[in-house]
């Protein structure tokens, strides 16, 4: 009996040791790969800051609010204000234009036609809007939307903030709806039924029950879609008119932070390249903050 037991014990111990080693290695690999993301993110911030230092050194903080963008040699001066202003104005306008549209779609999918066949067709179609490449939106805006707006009397040959905002609005709709219609679907039926039993009409239920209880989800969806709008490049580049000025109105031409990088990167070196990287850093920070706010609201909802 003694003889029989010993090898079994040893065997199981051996097995344990072997397993513990492989488990440790596995855990180590898992841990390591999660560091990759942290490393990438940290490296991004480091590289952007490092690349931006020459520009920030030359212009200081006035880089952010100077509106003079002058690449002429000897008189080189770079200020990011036109692009910061252009980015914020186009994104806010896009958000405002997309609001009624995405709100309607989320009501359509999450309330009026929830789970019906027509919702199963419309839902994927809206998702598909997120799948269309930015450059295709740009082409469509350039060749279809712009002539239409020129006919309506838009100045600057149809280029500018307004045209870019319309295309941006279409592009960001799926990001706003995917979250808000999920939240709207989750509003407890009891709440709605209580309101119906009091004699409320459907629209009254929507405005007094559904929207208030889904409010933070809807807002978070809009914030995330706003973050998307800030960084969109190609479609905006093709439609905004690429003028390095602070836009003086809704129909003015302009440039966004993303579009100026795309436009001027090709011939950039030295101080200009550094300034473009500094703009990239600002854009990174802006979208990071906006996204963090959106995610924070989602987390708080639980």
């Amino acid at each position, binding site marked *: 009996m003694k003889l029989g037991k010993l090898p079994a014990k040893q065997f199981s111990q051996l*097995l344990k040791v072997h397993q513990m080693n*492989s*488990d440790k290695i*596995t*855990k180590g690999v*898992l841990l390591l*790969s*999660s560091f990759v*993301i942290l490393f*990438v*993110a940290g*490296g*991004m911030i480091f*590289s952007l800051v490092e*690349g931006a230092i020459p520009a920030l050194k030359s212009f200081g903080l006035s880089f952010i609010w100077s509106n003079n963008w002058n690449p002429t040699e000897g008189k080189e001066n770079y200020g990011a204000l036109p692009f910061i202003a252009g980015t914020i104005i186009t994104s806010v306008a896009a958000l405002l234009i997309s609001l009624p*549209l995405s*709100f*309607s*779609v989320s009501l*359509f999918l999450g309330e009026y036609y929830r789970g019906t066949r027509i919702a199963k067709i*419309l839902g994927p*179609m*809206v998702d598909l*809007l997120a*799948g*269309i*490449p*930015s*450059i*295709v*939106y740009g*082409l*469509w805006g350039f060749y*279809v939307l712009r002539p239409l707006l020129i006919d309506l009397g838009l100045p600057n040959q149809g280029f500018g903030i307004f045209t870019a905002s319309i295309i941006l609005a*279409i592009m960001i*709709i799926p990001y706003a709806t995917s979250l808000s219609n999920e939240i709207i679907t989750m509003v407890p039926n009891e*709440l709605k039924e*209580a309101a119906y039993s*009091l004699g*409320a*009409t*459907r*629209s*009254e239920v929507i405005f*007094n*029950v559904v929207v*208030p*209880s889904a409010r933070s989800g809807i807002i978070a969806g809009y914030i*995330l879609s706003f*973050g998307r709008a800030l*960084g969109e*490049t*190609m479609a905006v580049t093709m439609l905004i008119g690429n003028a390095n000025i602070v836009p003086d109105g809704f129909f003015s031409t302009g440039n966004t932070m*993303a579009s100026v*990088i795309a436009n001027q*990167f090709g011939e950039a070196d030295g101080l200009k390249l550094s300034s473009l*990287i500094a703009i990239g850093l600002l854009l990174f920070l802006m*979208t990071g903050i*906006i*996204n963090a706010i959106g995610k924070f609201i989602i987390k708080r909802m639980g």
Partner: protein
Amino acid sequence: MPLVSSSLNEWGNMNSAAKITVANLSRRTLKDKLFKGLVLFMSLITISPIVLIIYKLVEKGYRQISLDFIIKTPPNTFEAMTALSNGELIPGGIANGITGTLLMVVLASVIAIPVGVITGIYLYENPGKLLANLTRNISDILQGVPSIVLGLIAYMWIVKPITSGFSALAGSVSLSIMMLPMIVRSTEETLKMIPESIKEAAVALGVPYYKVILRVLIPTGFSGLLTGILLGISRILGETAPLMLTALGSSVINLDITKPTSAIPLLIWEFYNDPNMVDLIWSSSLLLMGMVLTLNLVSKRIAARTK
């Protein structure tokens, strides 16, 4: 839910204050119907661009699509001009773009998928840990980084120090950073849906940890992982901006990852800027949209089948 109850109260007050009369009721019903009409109308407007865009691409692009379009490289401007003035279709195709796109997408996937899936598993296995939470948050923020910024990053990391010039590798790196957080997220979400008991059964049998992952977690969640990966690929397929800063473009087929390489979206951008070649934008976009749509539909189909 203090929000809801307070708004219900308000609503109750409002209602009790208003007398329910026939006129009042019909006014409210009318309002209700008008609002529903508005919602329907707005929803229709929202989906109309996708129909219009696809229609436009097909209408203007289908004639150019042929075998030549897939296996030949673009003509030079002069050839295109001659064809235009003779009223012919522009000869040649976008083979350099197709091969470049495939090369960079495959390379980006090779970089992003293993790291993304393993990180996703880590997040799933350590839900409450500080490091996991940090990784999850950072990954979420990474997902929101504009693609053009990723182009700048790959320029500083690869173009300047490693390939000392624009290269497919740099393009792939920018695309892989874009893809990584999407895969991390979808992996974690997929694994969360696997019943704990399946994993516990394997662990109880004394299966080593790595085998639990390879033989239980990944196969069980395979279709979910695949959906996430395909959606990630469909998202990077159409990216233009980061490639302008990294891969730059090339007029010939190039499979050397240290050399400038073209991609379908880069070609669309070049054609758009060349008045002689501009007719090629529609067919190229049609092809690109076709690829993106197919990937989207396939991944949706896989996702639907597993549910």
